[in-house]
């Protein structure tokens, strides 16, 4: 009862009539947007290129703009990762967000400092990985999917030497770890690295579960899912960096089942 009375006098729960207050805003937004769309359509025509010709592959061939972040990932990962596993994980991860975020604060208002981790993670995934890679794909990728600066002419004869090398061979060459030249040892080593990478989540759990309230609240299942998704997302820039710095192609290759990461 007291709660109800309090609510009735709290300005944050103040209500206004939908008609006219909301309806007029919606009406204005709709009219302005439709006008904008009309002017846009009068000024710029939808593209129509030459008729489809299966024999003439354009260079570069680009997917629709909203998938170019994924196409950009093809530079760093095989298609089964960039085209199938990562998109599936994005969808699954998004679906799970409400169920793994147990922070009750910041429900229904803008705040950064009450939910820093959530917002930084989402912004990293959305603005850096999705949007900015999309921009790179749309504007900065030319023939051969080579990188071209914003105003550089697209030279279709640009040759970029393919010097990419698998991690085990790179270590064999640079550190003299010759046993890694063996594909089986290479595979074991790569697999070990990947397991070790994800195991950091277990170590963190073991170290912090006693003292961290957040981890206790999450529980082991939610924590496991969150850590897996987070580390997988973080693995993208890690692999990108490895490519830019050491030309690493794959971390692990299992030839028998045609799987490379």
């Amino acid at each position, binding site marked *: 009862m007291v709660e109800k009375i309090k609510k009735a006098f709290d300005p944050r729960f103040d209500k206004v009539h*939908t008609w006219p207050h909301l309806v007029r805003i919606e009406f204005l937004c709709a009219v302005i947007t439709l006008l904008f769309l009309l002017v846009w359509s009068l000024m710029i025509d939808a593209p129509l290129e030459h008729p489809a*010709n*299966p024999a003439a592959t354009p260079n570069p061939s680009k997917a629709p703009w*909203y998938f170019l972040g994924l196409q950009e990932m093809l530079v760093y990962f095989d298609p089964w990762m960039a085209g*199938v596993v990562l998109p599936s994980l994005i969808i699954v991860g998004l679906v799970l967000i409400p169920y793994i975020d147990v922070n009750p604060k910041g429900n229904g208002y803008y705040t950064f400092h009450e939910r820093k981790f959530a917002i930084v993670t989402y912004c990293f995934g959305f603005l850096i990985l999705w949007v900015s890679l999309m921009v790179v794909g749309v504007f900065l990728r030319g023939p051969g999917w080579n990188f071209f600066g914003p105003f550089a002419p697209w030279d279709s004869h640009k040759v970029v030497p393919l010097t990419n090398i698998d991690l085990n061979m790179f270590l064999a060459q640079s550190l003299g770890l010759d046993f890694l030249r063996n594909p089986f040892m290479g595979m074991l080593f790569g697999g070990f690295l990947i397991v070790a990478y994800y195991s950091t989540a277990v170590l963190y759990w073991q170290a912090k579960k006693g003292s961290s309230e957040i981890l206790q609240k999450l529980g082991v299942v939610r924590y496991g899912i969150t850590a897996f998704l987070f580390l997988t997302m973080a693995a993208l820039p890690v692999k990108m960096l490895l490519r830019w710095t050491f030309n690493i192609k794959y971390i692990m290759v299992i030839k028998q089942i045609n799987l490379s990461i």
Partner: protein
Amino acid sequence: MNKLKLLLRDIQETIVQSQAWKSIFRHGYADTPRNRALAIASNVWLHLHPAKVRRHAIKLRYTWCAGGLTFLFFLVTVVTGVILMFYYRPVAEYAFVDIQYLEFDVPFGMINRNMHRWAAHSMVMMVMIHMFRVFLTGSYKPPREFNWVVGVLLITLTFLLSFTGYLLPWDQLAIWAVTVGSNMARATPLLGNEGPLAVQVGDLFDAAAGVKDTFITPRYDARSFLVAGTVVGSPTLLRFYVLHCIFIPVAASILMILHFWRVRKDGGISGPL
């Protein structure tokens, strides 16, 4: 400011007191709380809304109107899309020339096609912005978890809607974008002919069916299921057309109904608890 208000009121009075106005609307509209509520509750379109909303929820700086605009763009594509369907045949021999016909001979064909295209792109952009807003306001938190899930399905369908439509003009842009996109399906683990474990799974299926080198080959795998053959061709066009014009819009509409209903049932637009 006050002078302007008075002027507007004068104009309003002149109009509603005129003979023409009174001949159309027999009685006036008394601006009472009851009538304000009825304006919403007794209107089939407007009663999607509650009669009253929290003050902060109607602020543009809260919702960015992004969900509403996504819906508006969807409606524009439905209307312009149906008009396009009157002139377009989803067969490789005809599709491209039908688009040219639309552009050059059909009255308002060009602008109709432009509106469809730009509204579709805008919808894709706006749905991402809407999702960003919903995230930033934490509106996926209880009790709205499930509406977020519905939203994720909706954004997925929005991408697929746009992607299937991309093929229909049947020009170079169309088939190559869809070729690049659908080539990914080749690499599906287990079910794509170039994916991990494809050979092993194919052998299993072959053995079960008593055939050789049939399953999980370029002819029978995840990609050929998607594009109806080994290349993006006329069967792909028909398949994408049906998905684009019937299956995905219907599925998205059903989910939108659910989405809007849940916004109300979950207590209206989110706000400080």
